[in-house]
């Protein structure tokens, strides 16, 4: 009985502390990874203060540097958001890289092959990218939701297939004349405009931020957002609570793929102005780290993307000033990922497996199509 008495304070602590607890957790993880990184830099015989100083000043101080950071973070907001909303629903969509490539190709194709006024052309290209990413997510999503096939494996296989498929199309079928493997340049009506000589940062960034805002509202203020979270927390509970787990899971997976496709649109319409074969240095994979750091919260995704964007943006300055290799910055990033992964697995161990049961597992398989409780 005393347990019941203690319910109100416990509830209050659940609603109040998680925000701070979560932020603190991410900051602690960052702090630990920067300490580890500092040790590494010391081992290389460089001063950690100088290296981090250059990374920070080279990414945030001064308009050119900051604009480059904005350029670097733009694709990561899209891929980070894509991964975040899928993970929040208990679906590990780690196929954002492939979905982005297919989305980029679709945007690049519609961008050059269609002639329309800008008011229609640009949205059409974005839509093409969204659909491209969505279609690429369809196979892992269906397999996951209806046959309970592990989406991690399928997504991982879809990524190289996307790279090879887009590579084939852009080097053989649709290639523009010239020495570079790319599609013809997009029409000016399909461009996302840039602001500066120093950076390819473009209006796609604003679009990305608005998307994050939209999903933050959807997650917290709508029934769908609540159901997505519920199937992520405990699919069985959600099922018995009347959620159409399969349909919700499918929607989340496909929307996640579509958003990853939009990352490709930002690259092609804003940064490259044409689809370039194999353009991505791994924005889709970086998106996983961004989403983890943001703890799958859409509002935190831009901040996490800012950190990774800043590391990449500062990298060039670090190379200019010290002669250190670009690989150092990549290693520093990977350390962040490693610490975050360690933290996640620690949470997982602490909570036990029951809570991490994902949608599409047992319950829906028991009965036929259950929609009775769907609101």
């Amino acid at each position: 009985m005393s347990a019941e008495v203690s319910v109100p304070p416990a509830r209050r602590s659940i609603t109040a502390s998680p925000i701070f607890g979560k932020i603190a957790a991410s900051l602690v993880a960052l702090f630990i990874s920067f300490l580890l990184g500092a040790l590494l830099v010391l081992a290389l015989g460089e001063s950690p203060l100088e290296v981090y100083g250059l990374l920070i000043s080279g990414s945030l101080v001064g308009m050119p540097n900051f604009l480059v950071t904005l350029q670097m973070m733009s694709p990561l907001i899209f891929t980070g958001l894509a991964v975040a909303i899928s993970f929040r629903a208990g679906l590990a969509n780690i196929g954002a890289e492939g979905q982005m490539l297919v989305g980029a190709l679709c945007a690049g194709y519609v961008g050059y092959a269609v002639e329309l006024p800008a008011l229609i052309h640009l949205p059409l290209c974005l839509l093409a990218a969204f659909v491209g990413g969505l279609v690429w997510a369809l196979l892992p999503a269906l397999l996951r939701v209806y046959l309970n096939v592990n989406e991690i494996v399928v997504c991982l296989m879809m990524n190289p297939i996307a790279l090879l498929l887009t590579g084939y199309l852009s080097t053989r079928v649709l290639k523009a004349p010239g020495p570079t493997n790319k599609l013809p340049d997009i029409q000016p009506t399909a461009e996302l405009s840039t602001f500066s000589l120093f950076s390819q940062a473009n209006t796609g960034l604003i679009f990305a931020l608005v998307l994050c805002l939209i999903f933050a509202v959807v997650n917290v203020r709508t029934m769908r957002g609540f159901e997505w979270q519920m199937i992520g927390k405990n699919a069985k509970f959600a099922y018995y609570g009347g959620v159409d787990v399969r349909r919700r899971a499918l929607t989340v997976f496909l929307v996640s793929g579509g958003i990853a496709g939009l990352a490709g649109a930002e690259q092609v319409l804003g940064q490259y102005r044409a689809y370039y074969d194999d353009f991505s240095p791994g924005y889709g994979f970086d998106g996983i780290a961004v989403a983890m750091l943001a703890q799958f919260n859409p509002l935190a995704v831009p901040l996490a993307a800012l950190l990774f964007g800043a590391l990449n943006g500062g990298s060039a300055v670090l190379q200019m000033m010290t002669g250190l290799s670009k690989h150092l910055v990549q290693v520093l990033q990977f350390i962040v990922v490693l610490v975050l992964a360690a933290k996640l697995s620690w949470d997982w161990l602490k909570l036990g497996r029951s809570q991490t049961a994902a949608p599409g597992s047992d319950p829906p398989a028991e009965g036929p199509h259950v929609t009775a409780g769907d609101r």
Partner: protein
Amino acid sequence: MLNSFKSWIAGALFVASAAIAPSAQAEIKVAMVTSESGLGDRSFNDMMLAGMERAEEELGAEFVVIQPRAVSEFQSTLARAAGQDFDIIIGSSFDMIEPMRAVAEAFPDQAFGLVDVGPEPIADNVVSTVTKDWEGSFLVGWIAAKETETGTIGFVGGADIPIIHRFFIGYYYGAKMANPDVEVIETYTGSFTDPAGGKEYTLANVAEGADINFAVAGATSAGVIDGAVESGTFAIGVDSNQNYMAPGSVLTSMVKRVDTQAYDMIASVADDSFQGGSVLYYGLAEDGVAAAMDEHNEGLIADEVLAEVEELRQKLLDGEIVVPNYFDLEAGQEMMGEPPMATPPSVRNASEL
């Protein structure tokens, strides 16, 4: 935690301003901007680095290498490097032409260099180079004709397009100069990304008697080299040193000496002879092309053949030999180059080029 962050930033600003202040008085400061494949590519980027190291050694130049991760980072990287006080910023990649033009126009006082691109000038403060690949092809054609045992050599091109024909004409001219009786088989796979096709064409050439095949075919070249290994013949690589791809089966590689080209740019800044807006041509005489010799093809080419290469170089320098450029030929033309020699059937019998 917030405090430690603040102190980081404070420290960072301090260190950064210290770093931006001119450091040790090196003669020349050079920034090399790689293509997106970066260092370790065993190709242009690594070769450019060799040019930087040579400039460091011989000219006392100080250099940094900046490696963008993607083509989209070229422009911002060049622009930010232009804001530092480098004496010259050197890049390599066709994809860097447009970004460098934009940045060079915004920083008219900054010297830039771009190696191995097209013949069009890029901007008033950019020196660019064109590699006379036809002279390099001439050289390896000459070596192939000297080294063949069957009296037949082959050419495996990617697409059947003028820029690749230019390699063939040089190759053919060199081969005929070394040995007028040599047979040269001209083939094109139709693709730069088809190793399997490259292998088929190579084996077909071998079946017709060719024991050396020159691969000018991008990724298809891997198949040409594969075919050489399988049939116990030789392949010749192109652009960068590909000898390592199959030691003992790659006779040599026709390399574009982007290291020489980059080094000369730095040297021109060092002695104030930098001519912005100029396009420099690099052939055999300028050390802009070479037949790669390393541990992987040691002993494959006879010493006396190699000794004669130096004579060829001198003759090119004196104008005694002029290797024909395909773009100067006309359909049906019968003789080409200096000394004049018969054109191949693909030119002589063509109705248009």
